[in-house]
Each structure stands twice: as structure tokens, then as C-alpha cells.
């Protein structure tokens, strides 16, 4: 693990948390607020700082509306209450839906507010390996990821938070504005 790669990891993770607005210290953050990047500066060891970033990141990644498209099964969920997606769409062969109901038919390249349908050029289910809405709780899934991170897999952080476009789901859907979404690698 070169220090250059380590720097890149920290920069990309910091870039993620940079998008947040609050200035709370890490230990004081409420569930709906994220810590500012500066508040992590107090952690000297880079490895531990990475872990702290990742734990904070976990709050975003376990948000209901992120988890909605990371199911362990074949059906997405929708809404803050994570009910099953209606109409009843399913993963299909490639994660982009069945032949008659591709995700991209309704979820086009951009949000369409008059139809209250969010959109993004890369709209599809995450692969099953990224099933955060998992058999065990999403939080424990993350704890095991953190263990992997500190052991040998630090590169995994940067690989999952690669270049992303900010994604805001439109009116009436607060809380996800300007949070970079991992694009498919």
C-alpha cells in the first residue's frame, strides 16, 4: 500500500464528507447530520481516521433511500418508509429490470418533477454483493467491512466511492441532496 494510494483514499473519502453542511464534532453528530471533514483532523493515525470516515459514511449508506436499491433479493424498495417498490418491478437478468419493465423506462436521465420520478443515467439495482438491505442488519454488515478495511482491504474504500455525480432525488425527498452516489464501476 503506497502512501500515494493512501492519500488518494483519504482525499476521496474527505471529498465525500466535504459535501455536508454541519460542523458538529464526530461524537456529537445526530443521525441526520454528518460530521464535517475538519472534525476528523483530531485523529492522528491515518488508518483510524479512515475507519472514522467510513463509520460516518455508514450513516449515509444505511439511509433508507440508499438501501432501497441495494436489496439482497430481487425487488427494490422505495420511499423513506422503504415499502416495496410499486409497480412491482424486479431485478431481471442484468439488474436493470425485466424486458417489459426496464428501470430506465420510467427513471430517465434526470429527475422529472411533474411526474415525481427521480432519474439518473445509471438507474438500476446494485449487484447482490452490495446488498446493504441484508439478512443481518446493515450496521453489522458495515462493521465487518470496516474490519476488512483495516486488515488488508483499504483499497476497497476508494473503489466503492469512486467518481460520482451529486444526486438529489427531487422535491419532497429531503436529506440526500448533494451526496455523491457511487457510480457503477
Amino acid at each position, binding site marked *: 500500500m503506497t502512501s500515494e494510494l493512501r492519500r488518494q483514499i483519504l482525499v476521496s473519502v474527505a471529498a465525500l464528507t466535504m459535501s455536508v453542511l454541519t460542523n458538529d464534532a464526530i461524537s456529537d453528530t445526530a443521525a441526520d447530520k454528518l460530521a464535517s471533514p475538519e472534525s476528523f483532523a483530531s485523529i492522528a493515525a491515518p488508518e483510524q481516521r479512515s475507519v472514522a470516515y467510513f463509520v460516518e459514511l455508514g450513516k449515509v449508506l444505511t439511509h433508507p433511500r440508499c438501501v432501497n436499491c441495494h436489496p439482497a433479493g430481487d425487488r427494490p424498495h422505495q420511499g423513506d418508509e422503504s415499502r416495496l417498490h*410499486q*409497480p*412491482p418491478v424486479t431485478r431481471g437478468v442484468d439488474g436493470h429490470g*425485466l*424486458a*417489459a*419493465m*426496464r428501470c430506465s*423506462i*420510467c427513471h*430517465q*436521465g434526470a429527475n*422529472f*418533477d*411533474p*411526474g*415525481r*420520478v427521480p432519474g439518473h443515467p445509471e438507474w438500476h439495482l446494485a449487484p447482490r454483493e452490495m446488498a446493504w438491505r441484508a439478512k443481518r442488519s446493515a450496521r453489522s454488515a458495515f462493521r465487518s467491512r470496516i474490519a476488512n478495511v483495516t486488515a488488508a482491504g483499504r483499497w476497497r474504500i476508494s473503489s466503492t466511492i469512486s467518481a460520482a455525480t451529486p444526486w438529489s432525488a427531487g422535491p419532497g425527498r429531503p436529506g440526500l441532496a448533494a451526496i455523491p452516489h457511487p457510480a457503477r464501476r
Partner: protein
Amino acid sequence: MTTLAIKINGRAHGPTDVSDDLTLNDFLREYLGMTGTKFGCGAAQCLSCAVIVDNADGTSFTSPTCVVSAASFNGKSIRTVEGHAKDGKLSALQTAFIEKFAFQCGYCTAGFLNEGQVLLERLAKKPVARGDLETTIVEALDGHICRCTGYVKYHEAVRDVILADAKRYLIAGL
């Protein structure tokens, strides 16, 4: 405001200036008066608003029109229910729907017709086994809600059109 030039049932429309907020459903029903395409839920749940979109590569798919912008269809080619009959002669699917009494109030029928037509065209390109036919039809039509009929006769009509031309739609020998 964006310019919209679109081909509907083989006929070019536009270019017209449309607002970015205009749904394709409103464009068809209000601007063009083509009211065969219905407006049901407005939330892509019922698909009574569905039209056929023809890709340049010869494939087609059905799309709801109530949640997509008309502007996003600039340069595209679509087919609506008004375009199924040729010179007054009903398509095989339309005839089957009538003979099987597949619809009652008729509000969902345009959507079912479009979806059934796309299914027929898809099977003609990529036939399925006879044993998979019922599941294939259910999967294709499941996006469409019908309150009146209970779906049975719609499915039977589609299935019978396929079976009547089994050589085209089904894998031989299976």
C-alpha cells in the same frame, strides 16, 4: 421550452415548442387530441398511459407517458393505440380482444394492446418454449392494472394469438 419533433404512428409531428414540464401524456391527449392513450394514476403504476417506443435497432418497448417529459422523446418514434389498425382493418390482437371479450370499460385496453403487441414482436424475434409461455405473458402484462376484468381474458387473448401462429412465436418442438 424545448423543441419536440416526434414520429407518431409513422407520421411526423412538429417541430413544436413544448415546456420542459409537459408530460408526453398531456402532449398526446391535449395538444394532439389523441385520446386513445389514457391517463390513469399519473404515477407509472397502472400503465393505462403506455405507448410503444420504437428503437432505431428494431426493438421496441412500452413506456408510460404520465411520468416522462414530452421533450425527452424528441427525435423518437412511437406507436399509440390509434396506430394498430391498418386502413380500418384491426390487428390480430385487437380482433382477439374483441372476440374474447377481454375488456369491459376499456380504460386499460390501450395499454394492454400496446404491451401485447410489443410482446408479440419480441417473441417473433426470440421465441420461447411452450412451457414458458404463460409465465412470459404474465411477466409482460403484469405492469398493467385492470380493475374490471380480472385479467383472465386478456391473457387468454394474447395466448391464443400466439398459439394461432405458434411457428412464429414459439420454439418448435418444445
